[in-house]
């Protein structure tokens, strides 16, 4: 089981802030493909990966990051702090 978190417009588009999924996806990109197959709102949120960032266990990483042993994956747009 992996906890998936969504922030900002990704959260709004998917319609929930977090969910637990049972997945055997090997990488973040594989997980994204699984999610896109679920429903149109997922496909819409993940349509353009260049507009998204991903963190695995609270560290920024790339979409080809492996998911073995991972507890938490978060998807969000580029950050706008400061």
């Amino acid at each position, binding site marked *: 089981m992996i906890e998936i*978190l969504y*922030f*900002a*417009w990704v*959260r709004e588009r998917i319609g929930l802030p977090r969910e637990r999924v049972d997945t055997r996806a090997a990488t973040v990109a594989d997980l994204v493909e699984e999610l896109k197959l679920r429903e149109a709102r997922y496909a819409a949120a993940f349509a353009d990966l260049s507009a998204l960032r991903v*963190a695995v266990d*609270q*560290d*920024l990483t790339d979409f080809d990051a492996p998911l073995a042993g991972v507890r938490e994956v*978060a998807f*969000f*747009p*580029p*950050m*706008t*702090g*400061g």
Partner: protein
Amino acid sequence: MKVRVQRAPFDFAAEAAAFGGAGAGAVVTFTGIVRDCEGSLQRMEIEHYPGMTERALTRIAEEASARWGLVGGLIIHRYGPLVPGEAIMMVATSAAHRAEAFAAAEYLMDYLKSRAPFWKKEIRSDGEAWVSARDADEQALTRW
């Protein structure tokens, strides 16, 4: 180096006074304030990623502290609703000389802008929209 992520407002002057500059020759502060350029901003909502935010800010702070041999450092960043004129965040750095204090403060700001998990949404009288990341902010990281 102290890092605080909070919903409540902070008093910049009181924070600056408490930060002090004991043992340092130079203190630099930066404060970011909600602006209403078009006169239609009702409020700004800042969302963040609890847990990762503190982790990212602490990492950025430690990096700056080691790189410029800081005497002291402080990052305060708010989340939740803010109105125009309110302070969003501040950083303070102290060092022996001005070059280090300025460089560290700019480094903190550059990384905080693009590498700390905060997202700003503007709620205007004519609608709401997430603030887009600026290419210039991402570009700014290349100088370090």
